[in-house]
């Protein structure tokens, strides 16, 4: 009897503590201003133009520079290593606490439709798992995670190494009453990287050229994202930034996929401009990988994009 009581005491105290810990983590993660999902839910950004997509726009488009060209309040909602489902849910969260932007600038490239590039990052949504839409999409992308989340605290513990630091940082932000994130307009300047290392790695990964694949699931979430934006009367503008010229040479079906992207954009009734053949694509110093730009390259492209948008989109409206 004594042993049973001891076991019961252990089980109850563990469950109760984990339940409380889950609530504490939920709270702390929402206090962390450096987590975009938490910041957009706590701050009224109310941008007129939203930049969205994976790491390329995150490290490429500085809203401060873009604002001076298009004269509209811009926020960079892009997230590194994110796919369209990830982007869709972040737009969904953004609109819960912010006015609708007039325009959404969405980065798209053949890599966007290939499952080998970028992914759905479940850990970004752990505090929001009570939301049915989020829970369902998480379940679709990460069924192993979804099986566990009924157990107290498991929704945070499952990706603990990606969560613990953010919770501690949330505690710091809460204690210091921090209001703005480290990157207030969402833009993150690119890190200085060794180009040759990246290129060698690229060649190692794809020794026999890069054959892009088309994922139906990526297409499904691309359509969902566009439909959601359109249902909110947000004008979507699709664009592709320049790709380093040398890389295109080892991508035999790039143009074929680009054709499909143009067709898809037509189907969903959204303009799509590919800025592929700009002079800057020939200069290696503008890139630190085949798609990602250095600060210098990013400034050149932001200027090009800003002028284009001002002339072809905003002035015409």
């Amino acid at each position: 009897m004594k042993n049973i009581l001891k076991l019961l005491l252990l089980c109850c105290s563990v469950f109760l503590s984990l339940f409380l810990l889950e609530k504490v983590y939920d709270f702390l993660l929402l206090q962390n201003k450096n987590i975009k999902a938490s910041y957009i839910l706590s701050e009224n950004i109310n941008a007129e133009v939203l930049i969205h997509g994976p790491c390329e726009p995150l490290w490429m488009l500085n809203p401060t520079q873009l604002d001076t060209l298009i004269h509209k309040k811009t926020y960079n909602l892009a997230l590194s290593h994110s796919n369209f489902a990830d982007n869709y849910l972040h737009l969904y969260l953004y609109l819960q606490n912010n006015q609708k932007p007039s325009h959404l600038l969405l980065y798209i490239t053949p890599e966007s439709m290939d499952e080998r590039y970028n992914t759905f990052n479940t850990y970004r949504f752990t505090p929001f798992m009570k939301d049915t839409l989020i829970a369902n999409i998480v379940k679709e992308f990460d069924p192993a995670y979804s099986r566990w989340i009924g157990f107290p605290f498991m929704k945070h513990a499952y990706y603990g190494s990606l969560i613990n630091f953010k919770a501690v940082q949330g505690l710091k932000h809460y204690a210091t009453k921090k209001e703005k994130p480290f990157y207030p307009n969402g833009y993150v300047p690119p890190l200085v990287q060794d180009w040759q290392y990246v290129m060698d790695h690229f060649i190692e990964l794809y020794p026999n050229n890069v054959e892009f694949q088309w994922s139906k699931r990526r297409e499904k979430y691309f359509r969902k994202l566009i439909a959601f934006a359109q249902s909110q009367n947000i004008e979507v503008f699709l664009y592709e930034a320049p790709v380093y010229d040398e890389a295109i040479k080892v991508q035999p079906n790039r143009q074929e996929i680009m054709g499909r992207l143009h067709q898809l954009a037509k189907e969903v009734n959204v303009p799509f401009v590919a800025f592929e053949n700009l002079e800057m694509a020939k200069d290696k110093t503008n890139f630190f990988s085949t798609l990602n730009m250095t600060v210098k390259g990013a400034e050149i492209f932001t200027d090009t994009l800003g002028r284009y948008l001002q002339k072809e989109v905003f002035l015409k409206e």
Partner: protein
Amino acid sequence: MLVSLAYLVFLSVVLIVFYNIPTSWRLFFLLSVSLLFLGYYHFYSVLFLVGLTAFTLFIGKHLQDSIEKKAASKTIFYFGLLVHLLFLFGLKYVDVHAQGIGLNIASGTFQTQTFLVALGLSFYTLQNIAYLIEIYLGRTKVEKNYLAFFTYNAFFPKLISGPIESTRSFLPQLKSLDQSFDWANFNYGIQRIFMGLFKKMVLAERLLPLVNNTFGLETPATGLTCWVGICLFTLQLYFDFSGYMDIALGSARLFGLKLSENFNYPFRATSIADFWRKWHITLINWLTQYLYYPIVYRFRQWKKASVLLALTLVFLLSGIWHGIGWTFLLWSFCHIIYLSFETLTKSYRVRLSQKMPSTFYTFLSIFITFNLVCLGQLFFRASSLENAFDLLKRVFSFPILERPTFFAYLADGGTQEHLFNIYSTFLLVGLFLLFEKRICQHFFSENLKVLSLFIGILLLMIFGIFDSGAQFIYLQF
């Protein structure tokens, strides 16, 4: 396999049924669930296990008959031995997936294989060989309880990665499964399983990315950083393998069965010989009993040379048992050199120890032993000979110690989050190793330690890695 919710559910169900069926059914029940467990992961492994165990019983019986009749027992014995060795090395290294059949040298290097030809084969073949040797030498009689012998080989907690049990210690336990549920065994069992989960999920899994970064040459780490990365593999392997053992021993204890210990705080070893008395004990015992002693005895007139010969053969076999490849061979050579050196300099080292303060000598011995073991493990873990020498080259490259990037290179980055993770890993591993003996003595108890378990479970939940899906390292051997 043993670190999954499925296993814990399976274990709980088996345990409940085990204590609620007549005692005479228990052995059959344990055998059935063990085969089910094995079949769930790999059906063909069941056929190998049943076939080889039946063959061993058959040969064992004929061997004893021939000994009693003073007939040609040697032929039967060597035939039995040969078949086991053919299965052990044949199945491990003949690549039947390649076009034609050839030696699969490549898979002899360190890698987790997705397809395992026969799970647990390396472990139960050694048990079978030991059984045949014991009969041949007249030290044991043929086992008449076939059900017990099948369960001896198939018992699910120890099936995949050991410990390697002797018939003398484990079979009598299996033949007397009539005990009623015992809280002392239960408490010990769950606490031991918890310790295994903690070692695997918190310590080994947190070290895994650091080790992979180092051995995968993912970072430009040199000098001391690279050496620390190499040393971390030895720690990862220890936590991984001893964690598995804790789960196996804890699971067995829930059924009232005591398996042999495979580790005894190996990082407190003061010499390589001492290390091998504390690391993978059951394998080393097997090799000592059935290879080392017979060779030393056979060549006893050679004096020290017989010891060196025995050491060489034992470690060459141990290397081949782990995998056929140059890296495992070099791992073997490292230990042959270390142990030979220790054998030849024993008297000198004794004199040296008398001239130094004992604490200093012990500390120095532990430090040297650990680093030598890590050097050996570098070859054990390296994906190829080239990889091993690349790493060694890096260790001796400048800068030897570059403080700002020391941790960043290990963590493949250097963001605040990476550093937070690496600091917490070092803190957890460091504290665990420092207080390991106390922690283990506290948890490996027949009394339920409610508060300690409570704290431990919270630590496991906060710092455990749940999403890696990494297998136990020794599963591949």
